[in-house]
């Protein structure tokens, strides 16, 4: 190494109770360098980050051995400092950005005060000076209108802006080292791209080192100089980013690379659709009333789904992509009548379900099932697996205990779990196993359609890969159709015959997967694709995302008004794109023509922020 090390971790061991989370870990971070600490859940990467700032004790862990030394003037052995001495280091020489920008800020304190607090603590500034410095700090992280933000509260900002505030707080004292623990995991890809660019720029400006903790190889390729790969508390590989990506040595790193979804690695061929569709959705609309002010009855309608049409053939997977808040989950729930649509129709196997009563709807549940995002929260913790996974079937037709047991074992076999699992409870399974249980539950009624809402988003890449492979296998065996909803385009590409891109309550582009992803027509699709991290450090230079001038149409409208619907144009066989009419206010800067549209657009930014902090 040419540059002098800033931080040395020597033979670090971390324990939680008797559990050994990290063993004998050593690495250096040089001044100005970005080191990525990569690993899946349980690898000990977050424990390491917490240990560096000695926050691990608060989480119930402790440093069982080894040293952490921060070089410089004065050099400090962080692992030996008292809590008081550590307080002077935290936020000053070493600072940290957390994953969750929603919960890491104090919700009842103005942002200006929160940023100023750091400065007053470490630099002893008085209130007035600290406020000015806070303004500068916000400006440095390129938050628009920093002056106004000082008096705003966290809920008034979007997720991306909040993460910028977190970074501003972390950088307020110009630290030598920034520890970023999955800082972009909770953000949309376009926002993630902006935050990563920001961190790189600030690093050049301040000359700080960054310890970047992530599970996403795409992000690593985009930001790191060097990489340390952790697996279950052991370092399995360390090296410059280009070497690790070009020639991964450890088998685990190779497996991790192989499991990482890469955009452009091929999609399933579109099916010849001759049979009538399993699901056909026609002009579906869902809206929620939003109260305005204190006057009773005064409300606006939020159009979460604003006229969506799609269809899925038997045995086909339609991938639905879009960023948080675009209405894709609401669409999924409306398709299954978990929320009631305000307009349009949904037909399952040719039968319209939009107006069915509760008892008729129960029969429909046999045809369509759902798999949810969070495998930890979507299984009732108090029920044994046998009852959980056979519940939909049990609701359809009463079964004896023995029948349930037999069905449970059959389902467990299908999803690759042992029959003994039937007697156990959800907490005894890992995240991937739980998601298998959720799939088994959906399969129990042999549905024609499974709606998978972000079903693999909470899982590690290697586990996610197994789950999508399982879905593909089940699709072949049982000819089940999937509506596969995800914000992760690379995963969607891997499983979908066709994709639909959703933006602001509408489908803006749909068609065969290859066609849409390789020949995107709509500006939003292009922006989305440009922001996807590429797991290839060599291609880092050509993927600085353009800040596109694309503004979403307003979805919060007075009662009775509906958002303008774009017409779909067929650009190739089966490939439809929403018409981008300069006058339809889809593109920012275009002169809006209809007065109603103009009013909607002016209102829009504040409204969207209030409703969709993400």
């Amino acid at each position, binding site marked *: 190494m040419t540059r002098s090390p800033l931080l040395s971790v020597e033979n670090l061991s971390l324990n939680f109770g008797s559990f050994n989370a990290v063993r004998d870990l050593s690495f250096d971070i040089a001044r100005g360098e970005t080191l990525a600490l990569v690993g899946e859940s349980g690898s000990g990467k977050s424990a390491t980050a917490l240990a560096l700032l000695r926050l691990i004790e608060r989480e119930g862990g402790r440093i069982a051995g080894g040293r952490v030394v921060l070089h410089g003037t004065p050099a400090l052995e962080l692992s030996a400092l008292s809590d008081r001495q550590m307080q002077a280091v935290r936020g000053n020489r070493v600072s940290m950005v957390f994953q969750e920008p929603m919960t890491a800020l104090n919700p009842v304190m103005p942002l200006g005060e929160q940023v100023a607090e750091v400065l007053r603590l470490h630099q002893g500034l008085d209130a007035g000076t600290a406020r000015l410095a806070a303004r500068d700090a916000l400006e440095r992280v390129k938050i628009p209108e920093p002056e106004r933000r000082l008096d705003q509260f966290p809920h008034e900002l979007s997720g991306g802006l909040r993460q910028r505030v977190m970074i501003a707080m972390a950088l307020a004292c110009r630290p030598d080292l920034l520890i970023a623990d999955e800082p972009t995991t909770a953000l949309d890809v376009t926002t993630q791209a902006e935050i990563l660019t920001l961190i790189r720029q600030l690093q050049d400006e301040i000359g700080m080192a960054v310890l970047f903790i992530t599970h996403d190889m795409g992000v690593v390729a985009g930001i790191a100089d060097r990489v340390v790969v952790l697996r279950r508390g052991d370092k399995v590989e360390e090296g410059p980013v280009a070497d690790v990506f070009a020639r991964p040595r450890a088998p685990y790193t190779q497996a991790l690379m192989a499991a990482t979804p890469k955009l452009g690695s091929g999609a399933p061929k579109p099916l010849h659709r001759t049979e009538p569709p399993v699901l056909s959705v026609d002009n579906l609309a869902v809206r929620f009333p939003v109260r305005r002010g204190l006057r009773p009855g005064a409300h606006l309608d939020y159009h979460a789904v604003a006229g969506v049409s799609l269809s899925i053939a038997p045995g086909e997977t339609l991938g639905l992509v879009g960023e948080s808040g675009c209405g894709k989950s609401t669409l999924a729930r409306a398709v299954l009548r978990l929320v009631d649509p305000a307009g349009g129709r949904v037909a399952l196997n040719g039968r319209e379900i939009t107006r069915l009563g509760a008892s008729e709807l129960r029969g429909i549940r046999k045809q369509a099932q759902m798999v949810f995002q969070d495998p930890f929260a979507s299984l009732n*913790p108090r029920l*044994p697996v046998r009852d959980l996974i056979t519940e939909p079937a049990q*609701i359809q037709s009463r079964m004896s205990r023995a029948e349930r047991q037999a069905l449970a074992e059959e389902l467990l076999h299908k999803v690759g779990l042992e029959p003994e699992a039937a007697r156990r409870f959800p907490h005894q399974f890992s995240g991937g196993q739980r998601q298998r249980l959720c799939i088994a539950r959906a399969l129990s009624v042999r549905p024609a359609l499974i709606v998978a809402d972000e079903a693999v988003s909470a899982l590690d890449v290697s586990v996610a890969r197994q789950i999508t492979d399982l879905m593909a296998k089940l699709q072949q065996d049982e000819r089940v159709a999937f509506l596969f909803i995800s914000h992760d385009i690379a995963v969607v590409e891997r499983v979908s015959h066709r994709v639909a891109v959703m933006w602001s309550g509408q489908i803006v582009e749909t068609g065969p997967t290859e066609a849409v992803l390789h020949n995107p027509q709509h500006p939003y699709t292009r922006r989305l694709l440009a922001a996807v991290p590429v797991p290839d450090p060599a291609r880092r230079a050509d993927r600085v995302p353009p800040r596109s001038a694309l503004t979403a149409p307003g979805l919060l409208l007075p009662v009775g008004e509906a958002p303008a619907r774009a017409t779909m144009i067929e650009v190739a066989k089966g490939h439809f794109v929403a018409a981008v009419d300069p006058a339809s206010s889809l593109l920012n800067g275009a002169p809006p023509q209809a007065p109603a549209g103009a009013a909607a657009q002016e209102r829009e930014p504040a409204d969207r922020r209030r409703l969709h902090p993400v």
Partner: protein
Amino acid sequence: MTHSATVPAPSLPAAAYRLWRGADPIQKAAILIGLTLVSLAILAPLIAPFDPNSQSLIARLRPPLGFERAKAGFLLGTDELGRDVFSRSLYGLRLTLMLAGLGATLGLMIGGTLGLLAGIAGGRTEASIMAAVDTQIAVPFTLVALFLLAILGSSIEVIVLVLGLAGWEQYARIVRGEVKRLMNMPFIEAARAAGAGPLRIARHHLLPNIVSPLVVQFTLSLSNIVLLESTLSFLGLGVQPPTATLGSMVGIGRDYMPTAPWIVIAPAMMILLITFAVQILGDWLRDGADVRLRAR
């Protein structure tokens, strides 16, 4: 307390043995105390040496055996009317356990059902139930008890009703809060997607998940009800004399504290032991019912 249909139930003795094995020494002590108290209460007519209400004015205020002036056969001494304190304590224990158990169960049923209804139904139903809860909290309960007992008379049934009404609003609040929290959990939506109706969701998905706070509230309210019963007795509104309850014995014995403390000590100790055993057993049951605490 987990729903019987939801857990593969081993035979009852085996389950009881497993629970006993898992108990720590304090819990074991509480179990033994609880079992002893319940057996004493059930067997009171067989154990008690005297009729609890038979008076003997020549043998008034005699101390327990082993003290000066003690009268043979009167283990814990006699009260101000010459009644056997030991016999009265046993019968008092019997009645108090029955009243408290029935009262707390009644409160659990009323409050639990209304809370569940409020949490699931929402809207106007919820608003009116919670308005009733707020009213109950706002109005001093002794007043309500006085009113009810004045109108309906103080029979055992009415006292159980009053004691049950005394705690229902706490159950309703707890259950409604828990239900509201759980209704937002994805597994409830998963159940809806599976086709489950509100009854099934309540029975299989909500109830097993609110057992823990309910058990805790039950143990708290059981102790409170024992105290409330003694308050009512003290005010002359509870079980009418000469019938003994632990509360009324303490209430009456209070006047003789300086000269004849034994009248109060025996029933007071029993109240203490009931409360102690119930609290410890409540925690133990709660943990035993939580499948998540079982070994992986």
